[in-house]
């Protein structure tokens, strides 16, 4: 062929030699390339493993929290206010209510800390510790817990009852070792005597690690971080998701049906299509700006309300649902439409009675994917004021509330880092658990619906 090819056997040998050399180089490259691929996959899988490993290892211990089991004596000399007013003694229910309120006020003003202190000292009779340091052992809401017990059942007056009180966040840190136990005294959050007592209590079983149900039933708390829970954030997220489902699904499905089944090919339709594709890629924070400017500033809706959050997330979720529903509609065979039309059904009847029901599994999956996405969204909610500290469970979609991802954001910024790092991971576990549950439901329903269809 070319002048590099020599004639005869010598040439053949030389060429073979050249090919062999290049071949070994090429095979080496092949192996390197393969390894690059394997390493990339290993890296990606490694990231998943590290991420979940970190969250689980940090978060799971937080679900078991140190709890102090003591015998509380409801001392009649300490609890003021006397017996609970009885309805029969008063001329009207209103008067009775007023007397009850006054009784509750008097009871609240009693020295409940003293009762907590006595109960704790009874567990370690010979231990010398200052009152202030002793009370540091348990959460500061212990006194309200005992008071509420008394409110619920005034008969305990003068009796000794077994009570489980949460240990304070600092005690929990110390016992779990989330704070460096070898640090000198001045860098520890608890006094030396309190730490020794905590260790002693753990040894003799007064302190045990119990499952922390209050993470699910309590609201956020600043004064008693050990009792902080997710109930308020969960309800806020729930209201928002209801708003999203109620608005985004009908509107999204309707737009998809129009665009796919009815829309004439004209400028307006093109405009809508381009719009939807672009909206799907607009950063979420821009939707937050829209919410702040339009819903709050222009329409005067309340800040921090789940309704506004839900509206913003609805607009964000719409493109997801529209695009997925359109794909599902496109997958319905045209023969179905032709058969329905041929039998005399109108176009509306064809679409709503025959085509749309075929897409239910697809619409359902799209809805759940959209809702899961909305459930984890944080940035737009910060802009509409849902990052405020809310200490009660919202009663309706117009009450101030926060949301699960925002609660994670708030907790990771808490100054008690040692305690809240674990608590934040626990909140993340709850959030990821919810998302997993949603996806599992989607897969389950989808397989059932597809079997039927």
């Amino acid at each position, binding site marked *: 062929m070319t002048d590099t090819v020599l004639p005869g056997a010598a040439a053949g040998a030389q060429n073979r030699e050249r090919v062999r050399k290049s071949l070994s180089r090429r095979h080496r490259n092949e192996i390197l390339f393969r390894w690059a691929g394997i390493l990339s996959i290993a890296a990606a899988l490694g990231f998943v493993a590290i991420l979940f490993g970190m969250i689980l290892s940090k978060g799971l211990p937080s679900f078991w929290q140190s709890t102090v089991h003591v015998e509380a004596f409801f001392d009649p000399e300490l609890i003021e206010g006397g017996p609970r007013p009885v309805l029969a003694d008063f001329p009207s229910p209103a008067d009775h209510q007023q007397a009850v309120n006054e009784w509750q006020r008097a009871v609240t003003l009693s020295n409940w800390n003293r009762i907590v202190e006595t109960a704790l000292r009874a567990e370690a009779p010979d231990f010398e510790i200052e009152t202030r340091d002793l009370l540091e052992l348990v959460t500061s809401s212990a006194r309200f817990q005992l008071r509420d017990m008394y409110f619920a059942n005034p008969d305990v007056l003068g009796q000794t009852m077994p009570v489980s009180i949460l240990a304070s966040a600092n005690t929990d840190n110390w016992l779990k070792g989330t704070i460096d136990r070898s640090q000198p005294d001045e860098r520890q959050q608890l006094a030396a005597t309190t730490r020794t007592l905590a260790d002693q209590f753990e040894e003799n079983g007064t302190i045990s690690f119990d499952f922390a149900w209050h993470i699910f039933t309590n609201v956020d708390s600043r004064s008693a971080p050990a009792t902080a829970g997710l109930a308020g954030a969960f309800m806020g997220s729930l209201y928002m998701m209801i708003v999203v489902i109620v608005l985004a699904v009908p509107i999204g499905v309707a737009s998809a049906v129009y665009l796919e089944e009815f829309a004439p090919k004209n400028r307006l339709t093109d405009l809508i299509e381009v719009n939807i594709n672009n909206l799907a*890629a607009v950063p979420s924070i821009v939707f937050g*700006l829209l919410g702040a400017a339009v819903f709050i500033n222009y329409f005067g809706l309340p800040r921090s309300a789940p309704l506004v959050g839900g509206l913003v997330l609805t607009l964000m979720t719409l493109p997801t649902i529209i695009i997925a529903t359109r794909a599902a509609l496109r997958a319905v065979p045209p023969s179905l439409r032709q058969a329905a039309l041929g039998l005399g059904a109108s176009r509306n009847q064809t679409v709503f009675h025959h085509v749309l029901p075929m897409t239910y599994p697809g619409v359902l999956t799209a809805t759940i994917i959209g809702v899961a996405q909305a459930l984890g*969204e*944080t940035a737009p909610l910060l802009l509409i004021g849902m990052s405020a500290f809310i200490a009660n469970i919202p009663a309706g979609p117009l009450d101030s509330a926060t949301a699960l*991802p925002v609660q994670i954001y708030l907790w990771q910024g808490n100054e008690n880092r040692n305690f809240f790092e674990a608590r934040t991971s626990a909140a993340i576990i709850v959030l990821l658990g919810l998302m997993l549950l949603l996806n599992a439901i989607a897969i389950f329903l989808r397989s059932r619906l597809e079997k039927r269809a």
Partner: protein
Amino acid sequence: MNALVIAALLLVLLTVSYQVGWSRSRKLADGKDTRLHSRPIYHGVLAALFAVLPAIVIIGLWALFSQSVTNSFILAQLPAEVAQQEPFAVQSAIARVQAIASGYGVIGEPTAAETAAASAYASFQQLSFLGVIAAAAALGAGGLFWAQRRIAPRLRARTEVEIFVRLALIACSTVAILTTLGIVLSLLADALRFFSFINPLDFFFGTTWNPRFQSAGTGSAGEYGLLPLLWGTVMISIIAMLVAVPIGLMSAIYLSQYAHERVRSVVKPIIEILAGIPTIVYGFFALVTVGPFLSGLGEAIGIDIRATSALTAGVVMGIMIIPFISSLSDDILGQVPRTMRDGSLGLGATQSETIRKVLLPAALPGVVGAVLLAVSRAIGETMIVVLAAGNSPVLRANPAEPTSTVTVSIVNQLTGDADFTSPQSLVAFALGLTLFAMTLLLNVLALYIVRKFREQYE
């Protein structure tokens, strides 16, 4: 209470009118030789539409305008000099009257004028509510009456209902347009208000970002140079791409060209889990794990790396984007015709040579489009950078130092009790507009490239 009354009214109208339409049309057809054009269901729905829609329109109008009507009514009751005050004082005067009328009381003794206005307002409130309810009910009844008079065998009830359904569908699909319009208009309006405080040139080309909050007491507006934020955004996006593109692309290539089907069916979903994790979780991951790890690594090799830095945020954002790149590249590689691959292999090229010299060049436009889409995601990402970038809006080239981005500054400027009048909060909208324009441009470009690529092989 009010909402309950309205809901009850609408429900009653709905059931009654549907029942009337349905039963009347059936009676027409029963036993006689006439045949209805539409089935009774459609007559019922049509009657219900005629009755309920006017009532909803009345109630909707009231909901829209009751606020301003009420305010002007209360102002009319108050002495004339009240209305000439500052808007803020007028608002608080109105709020006082409403509070007195609601019975909760106000701070300080209400004046005689206020008490009188409050009682007038209370009765106005009741009367107007009753009036609106009565008007809605009357209009609904009128609509029903008209609808039931129209019922005849030849009435095209189904066609009319279908026209209404079609209109409702169109209305739903315009929500997307309205959203875009709302975004553009609100961003533009507030950004223009910001530019009335700050020269746009100072904003777009300024190199210092220092929005002094008014509580600092300096009284000056502060400096709003976009460049440090823009640079931070670009730097973090570049780092994210340096992490995501090689890993994402190589995993896609390996999974689609080399891996066994069983491996693929296990590994692919696991990688895609990364796409479903909320960004706040990535932010926490960056803050707690990646940041300290990188800073420890830097210490070991003698470089000073801060725990919250552009590097931390960029690496974690890269991890977040891996599944995005890998699934898009997977699609694109799958679209390259099989014949090209077979031809190359048939000529004796190794598999990796086929991939590098044939598949990738053919898929390049698509991959570039995918990377552009990924960049636009990285630019708009917020929570990772809020937690992990260190929030230090200074122009520096070292990625190991803390930095700040456009999105972080939006969050910082608008979180808290923003009042939408100071440049400190309005700047968020100018930043948002910049962000929106940037991502829009990238997306349009990416979609254009991807579409061109698809057409090439169809």
